[in-house]
């Protein structure tokens, strides 16, 4: 589904990623793990075209999208739930959602109705401003908005960051449901337990490149890798 080879990218003069390789397969969940500053969020932004790839390729089902504009990449069916959630504060919850339904085909799998069934909390908040939500509600809205893009690939950057344990559990349930329904996901996560329970495959990023690849079970069993690259 998603194949990244020899990716080089960063912020202006500051290069962060040096020759990263990544494989995410259709219908599976890939977790990207690594310490703070390893380049996980940078990789996500590069996939969305928010940061330029100075070298290397990013292919979606074989098509190289490196260098394409962000809105074209989004229209290819890649939805992004950023670390900062990025709810539009001047829009109501409903408007935040409607913005994502704009490009949906008539027979779209995810509709406003279905998303509100999936996150019932949001249906009570539809007329609230985007800036009036709790952290958990913002996260659900951000995921709901991404689902309304009817993506073939869902990118999630730290979906549990700063949330109460009970909300983390809710998000975990929802993402597990999506996984069971066959959604392809790439997940960046600091919460090792959360990530390895949800993911099939794991890539570890360190110093701007992929330093370890394997399955969730492998990394849970491999204390040496955890210690060396994650400091768990």
């Amino acid at each position, binding site marked *: 589904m998603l194949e990244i080879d020899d990716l080089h990218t960063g912020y202006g003069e500051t290069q962060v990623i040096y020759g990263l390789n990544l494989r995410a397969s259709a219908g599976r969940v890939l977790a990207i793990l690594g310490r703070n500053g390893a380049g996980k969020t940078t990789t996500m932004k590069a996939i969305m075209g928010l940061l330029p790839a100075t070298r290397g390729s990013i292919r979606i089902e074989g098509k190289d999208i490196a260098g394409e*504009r962000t*809105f074209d990449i*989004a229209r290819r069916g890649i939805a992004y739930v*950023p670390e900062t959630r*990025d709810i539009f*504060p*001047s829009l109501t919850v409903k408007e935040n959602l409607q913005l*994502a339904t*704009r490009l949906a085909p008539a027979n779209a799998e995810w509709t406003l109705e279905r998303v509100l069934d999936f996150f019932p909390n949001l249906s009570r908040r539809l007329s609230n401003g985007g800036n009036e939500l709790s952290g958990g509600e913002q996260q659900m809205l951000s995921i709901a908005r991404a689902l309304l893009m009817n993506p073939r690939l869902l990118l999630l950057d730290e979906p549990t960051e700063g949330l109460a344990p009970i909300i983390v559990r809710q998000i975990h349930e929802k993402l597990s449901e999506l996984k069971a329904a066959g959604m392809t996901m790439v997940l960046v996560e600091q919460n090792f337990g959360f990530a390895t329970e949800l993911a099939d495959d794991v890539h570890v990023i360190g110093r701007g490149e992929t330093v370890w690849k394997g399955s969730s079970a492998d990394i849970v069993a491999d204390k040496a890798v955890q210690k060396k690259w994650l400091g768990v």
Partner: protein
Amino acid sequence: MNFWIVQALNGLQLSMLLFLLSIGLTVIFGLMHFVNLAHGALYALGAYVGVSAFALTGMYWGAFLLAPIAVALAGVVLYLGLIRRMRKAGPMNQVLVTFGLIFVLLDITRIIWGDLALSIPEPQLFTGRSEVLGVAYPTYRLFIIGLGLTVMAGLWLLLSRTQIGAMIRAGVDNDQMAACLGINVERLFFIVFCIGCALAGLAGAVAAPVLSVTPSMGTQLLIPVLIVVVIGGLGSLKGAIAGSLLVGFIQTFGAVLAPQLASVAIYALLAAVLIFRPAGLFPAKA
């Protein structure tokens, strides 16, 4: 009493002109962080096109219709030729280029229309005076106030009730996230830029019968318009409305009540807002 009503109407009329100019500028600012100092020159261009359109059609309404269209077309040329290339050049370069553009447009108007002050007569429909609140007030100025209020209402509906309005607000909030939802923010910016230019052109044509049309009319209004944008807060319709009313009324009443202080008054207001509300009164970004 009559004095206050007349001055209030004068203030309102100036506020509407300031609003027509500042709304385009502030949304462009907010959406793309692009500083277009040539916006005032486009207003002057609108007035001159209005003069020619009047000469051509013999009708005020010819000017009223053709000036916004011509200035929007000038906006398309500016955008494709210059602004699109300057998008990533940083604010300093944008300020320099659009500052230079002021002089280019100034000289173009001089070459085509000359240095003498020109004007357009009022439309026959709105000549003479009308009674408002017990005072006789020029009908055409009332028309300017009505037009400004209509445009305000129209833009409010557009921004708050339509999908393109929601897209514009989303783009002002966070252009990167808007792009992640498949919105072509650059094209949105182009549309907003053209609407802003058309409104500047409209303001020029509407002002032509009450102010004299001179090459420097754009630069005279540019500073108050920039102050409106900063006081109101970048990118917001509410800010443009509040800023226009404040600056319009302070300028009008300052000029009649305390002429020696009038020129300082709006700068004092600007300084006060920057100290107590650095983001402006109604910033689009919370």
